[in-house]
């Protein structure tokens, strides 16, 4: 009974606008069985493949997790379905498809705890909201600590979470060992002193999040337009009027950028710069194994975190490479660093084989926290700056961005993520690393 109750946003009952669409129908075990008898021939497109219309009330640029979730909540929670999501390639192949699938809400800044907790609550009801099983698996997120200073920091964080009504537990060394028998508590260099567990943390099948939101948005009347690169942002008198695309001009009252990793490029089209640098974050997966790791585990003496997917592969990652790059690929020094931490903490992995490495490019902000904000250009909304925390934030990011678009004012749990905070000195700096994105 880990799930905490959260009313799912109302689904719009307004008829779909735009091109005629065939619904993919409701998913259920019974339908699956029925289709099985019929050779699985009755399924149709999970989301309608729309062509862009000349104008929309809202154009969302970026068909990734945040863009699709924003469009979904605009339609489902605010009744705004005159919306297009424009994606330059096929949807859902950016960072939503390149992360390590972790969800959690353990943060140091009270505002961040509230924001990510909203997200966690939305995750908990996601399959019912979307009628799409994204396999939200609340198996627990465990942070190990190796020094007393680290214990103090995590104590402070866990206490804050508890004050905010979020789950957090301190674990002894023995409890860590019981939960993760693979861990070598002594490990030769930085012994594990204990751990902090967020039982409601866990993993989600990442691709399914994009597909589920796309399907939900599409059924609610949103046009999802793939292979439609935005090449310019048109504005007049300080107000956005629409976007130039590879498939012609698309007018809009509001344009929302949800292109984390490439926010700076889009902002440049709109004529301003952002407090963002683009960096690559790598991830890795091993061959499939029978169940051997039941939590999301984070090492505290190096950059390394790991979980086991339902398919059996160990999915793991480390820190960003630390220099500006748009190259969505893995690099070598990080391989050594991450795997060294893995073998140190979990020596039984020594003979397990790593299959693939890949990279996703992140919007790294100057304080390590995201941006959901109005911009210097009226009518242009930014959802970006996700650093490496974008995946877990998808539901809340979409939900609060939709709120900002629909109401013109920030959602209370995302108000601290405004763009003006940098000039004002209201940074939301989890690590205290300062305006050095490569240190966050």
């Amino acid at each position, binding site marked *: 009974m880990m799930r905490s109750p959260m009313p799912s946003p109302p689904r719009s009952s307004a008829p779909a606008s735009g091109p005629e669409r065939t619904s993919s129908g409701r998913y259920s075990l019974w339908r699956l069985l029925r289709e099985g008898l019929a050779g699985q021939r009755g399924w149709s497109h999970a989301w309608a493949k729309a062509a862009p219309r000349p104008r929309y009330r809202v154009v969302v640029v970026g068909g990734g997790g945040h863009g699709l979730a924003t469009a979904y909540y605009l339609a489902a929670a605010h009744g705004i379905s005159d919306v297009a999501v424009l994606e330059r390639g096929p949807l859902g192949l950016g960072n939503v498809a390149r992360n390590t699938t972790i969800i959690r809400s353990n943060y140091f800044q009270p505002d961040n705890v509230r924001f990510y907790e909203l997200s966690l609550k939305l995750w908990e009801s996601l399959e019912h909201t979307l009628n799409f099983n994204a396999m939200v698996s609340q198996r627990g997120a465990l942070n190990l600590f190796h020094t007393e200073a680290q214990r103090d920091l995590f104590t402070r964080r866990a206490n804050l979470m508890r004050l905010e009504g979020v789950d957090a537990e301190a674990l002894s060394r023995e409890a860590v060992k019981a939960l993760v028998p693979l861990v070598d508590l002594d490990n030769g260099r930085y012994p594990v002193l204990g751990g902090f567990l967020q039982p409601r943390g866990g993993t989600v099948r990442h691709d399914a999040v994009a597909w589920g939101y796309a399907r939900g948005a599409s059924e609610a009347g949103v046009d999802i337009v793939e292979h439609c690169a935005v090449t310019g942002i048109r504005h007049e008198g300080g107000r956005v009027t629409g976007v130039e695309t590879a498939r012609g001009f698309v007018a809009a009252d509001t344009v929302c950028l949800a292109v984390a990793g490439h926010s700076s490029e889009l902002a440049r089209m709109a004529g301003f710069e952002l407090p963002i640098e683009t960096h690559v974050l790598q991830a890795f997966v091993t061959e499939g194994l029978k169940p051997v790791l039941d939590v999301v585990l984070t090492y505290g003496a190096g950059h390394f975190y790991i979980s086991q997917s339902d398919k059996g592969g160990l999915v793991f990652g480390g820190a960003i490479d630390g220099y500006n790059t748009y190259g969505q690929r893995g*690099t070598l020094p990080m391989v050594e660093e991450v795997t060294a931490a893995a073998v140190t903490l979990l020596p039984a992995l020594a003979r397990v084989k790593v*299959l*693939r490495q890949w990279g996703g490019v992140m919007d790294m902000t100057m304080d390590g926290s995201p941006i959901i904000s109005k911009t210097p250009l009226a009518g242009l909304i930014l959802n970006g700056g996700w650093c490496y925390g974008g995946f877990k934030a998808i539901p809340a990011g979409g939900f609060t961005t939709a709120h900002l678009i629909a109401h013109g004012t920030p959602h209370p749990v995302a108000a601290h993520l405004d763009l003006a905070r940098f000039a*004002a000195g209201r940074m939301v700096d989890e690590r205290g690393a300062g305006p050095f994105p490569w240190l966050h």
Partner: protein
Amino acid sequence: MTGPARIAQGLLTDPARPLAFRFDGAQLQGLAGDTLASALLANGRRLVGRSFKYHRPRGIVTAGCEEPCALVDLVDAAGGEPNRLATTLALHEGLVAVSQNRWPSLELDLLAVNDLLGRFLPAGFYYKTFMAPGWAWERVYEPLIRRAAGLGRLEARVTDHAAPAEIVHDHADVLVVGAGSAGLAAAAALGAAGLRVLLADQDVVPGGGTLLDARWSDWREEMCRRISALPAVRALARTTVLGAYGHGVFAALETLTPGERARFGGLRERLRIVRARRVLFACGASERLIAFPGNDVPGVMLAGAALGYLRRYGVAVGLRPAFFLNNDEAYEAVFALAEARVRAAAVIDSRPGAVAARRAQEAGIEVITDAVVTRVLGRRSVRAVRVAARNGSTRCVDADCLLMSGGHSPITSLACQLGARLEWHDGIAAFTADPPLAVGRAAGAARGIYGLAAAALDGATAARALAAELGRTVPPLPAGPVPPSDRDATPVAPLWEVRAPGKAFVDLQNDVTADDVRLACREGYEHVEHMKRFTTCGMATDQGRIGGVAAAAVLAEARGAPLPEVGQVKPRPFAEPVPFAALAGGEVRGHFKPKRRLPLHEWHERAGATFVNTGLWLRPLVYTQAAGWDAVLDEARAVRRSVGITDVSTLGKIDVQGPDAARFLDFVYANTFSTLAVGRARYGIMLREDGLLFDDGTTSRLGPTHFLVTTTTANSAAALEHLEFHQQSVCRNLDVLLTDVCDQWAQFAVAGPHAREVVALVVGDLDLTNAAFPFMAVAEARIAGIAGRLFRISFSGELAYELAVPAGAARTAWEAVLAAGRRYGIRPYGLDALNTLRIEKGHVTTAELNGNTTADDLGFQRMLKKSGDFIGRALATRPGLTAPDRLQLVGVRPVDRAHRLRNGMHLVAPGSPTASLGYVTSSTPSVELEGWVGLALLAGGRQRIGTRLLGTSPIHDESTEVEVVSPHMLDAENTRVRS
């Protein structure tokens, strides 16, 4: 006898050296030189595993690293290894392997029921169900799915030592990937041109395709001889290039021979990081499957694999093989097996006719042209195949194995990682990819030039071009054995799938069928990346090597788009699965990070210190092994009451010299140093450019143009970089030099009311009276006769001196102080006591300098200079950094003195117990005050001094009322430090 199917002498096997091994409990025999797969086949074993999803019986499909099915768990004393490929696993005496993913046994697997339910379990079925009730996913469905999924088994046990591993760094002018005919010809030519060449080949011996054709052995031997004679060419067998990383960097995995393994302490493989000016991809092409119903039955194999087993190990994969193919290259297997008296039951060629088909017919082999296999009869082994000709006729061919070939795909993954674009060629029905010329080239089958002779020629041509680009010329090479010329061939005719009832697999390891691909397309997952992710096609350990193009072709047909437009999924490293140990190298566990030891580490050790990791440093925490506060407080008490000594050598120390040294320090510090007198020290704070505190420490002026900066231990490396960065950028016109002298100087604090008397005894002829050597004085001094420095600075709040001597003389100085202090009961004190002392005094460390605090937050507002530019000056004035409700440094004490504080405890107002107002950063039982004392960062803290709040630690279920006090809880007037 080493197996009934061993019909000939293999190129690699040694009939004189039989090896015993076990598979699933059965005791079997193979030969030295065998792989586990060849030994199993020699023993007539077909069934080696169960498939991932449907638990269908599976056998060996290939003879190399592209193997999708023959994965086994290796069992040995060291805990074993899951998911080893039988096809690349060298057999050794006593090897024990077990099959995977079956229960209770390989022969009888109950989960094979999934195969019968397959119609209800299409690709992505799990996205559409298991959604209700909400709690059931984690409790019921997911555990079931997880248990059924996964392949190999890993024992979760902790070994007591790290597996041996090493990373070796290599450099070359040209890296040649692959030692087939193209690679050998190229390496010989490049070497002759005087270039440094690294020739890497994944096979146990060089030769590639030439190993499978007896006519090429002379040529191969001559090339190997030439290469051996060239000192600048290094040839590495058993070495797979795993990934291409740009800037000429490649990672390669070398598997060690048993001899080398023994010499290197059991090392199994080493990772090589190769830096090369150019690369030549001569990595060949890989054979493809054809999707038809039953293409996964044990005994259905790639034709090239059958040829490999025969030539390399002398093993016949069957005695009555049928062939199903669409290209002439695959006929090599037909002919070779026939030569070994294994006659084909029939060759089913999808083409209406071909040069090779005619040759086969001339040799008396039945070739059924213009026909396809529509079904395989047999479940655990092939019994017969059903053949349908284009003209509508069908027949059944009895056979004990079916050897298929859907053509060949040049291996392009490394080139693609370097930005090469895939290009489709109808002539070979395959994609090729040419790397950018600045990076290198591809040659031979790797770029679609098939035929050993053509590839050898292509390799030599590429070598000449590369040599020229690198400023060398390939000299005329001595005439060697003339290689046989390639036979005429009829081009491949694309054939990806035979549509007939039943499961036709495009990904054998992940159990993805052609129907799954079509379902994905029907549901809109029609981009090749979407299809991959929806069906998991190509995501298994073999990365879809043999079925990837077929899957793309099925998708293309379903989309009604040409195959080149559909493309292939983007290849990512690694070319083959790599053990963690190999990637990690030797810097793991005890060597994960260097240990940084104090000059007096051994002394502290002998004195019984408990050490604590702070960054890389090992520091004495307290001089006892016992837990608890008693010893800490005893040490701290000695300082407060008499005298103590502590090792502060970990502080960062930077020597700053030059005519502009003072100007530089004025810029990097928020306070002023140009006004500091020679022979004086000053506490300084550095800000980041964003106005927040970066670091603090004492800076001394040793001469008019000579300063010594100290930084915190935690920030020492970052502070040096921060200063160097600014010195070389913003301040590059200043004449100032920075030198890291952290390791040069051992530094000790001698603190306590008797510090002066003790220090006076070890410092010769220096007047230590307040008048001559007041608080914050600095002097060169002879310390126990050693040229050193004396500072009168205090972190503890007591009368204190810091003594610095060259680290090599640390012991002499330290022991001199101890001897001098004996009469005062001097005690060494560790980090914990140091912390107790500084908390009482209200001094901050990194717990408070946490990157989110300003000078004002910590009470340093008066230190900011009023005039002149310095780092962080402007941005520190922003409203967010000067707001009155910011977290400010205060002291806290429990109202009930018997209660304790905790670091990380939050402070709340009694009226709103869930709204955090701040938190305790540091706390300790006090020596001088009753009970616990703590430092806290508290919203509007200075305004709250004198009020009471609740300190709460929900995770400990603790709450206590605290009074907010000044952070300077002891001797706020600083009389002690000035005494």
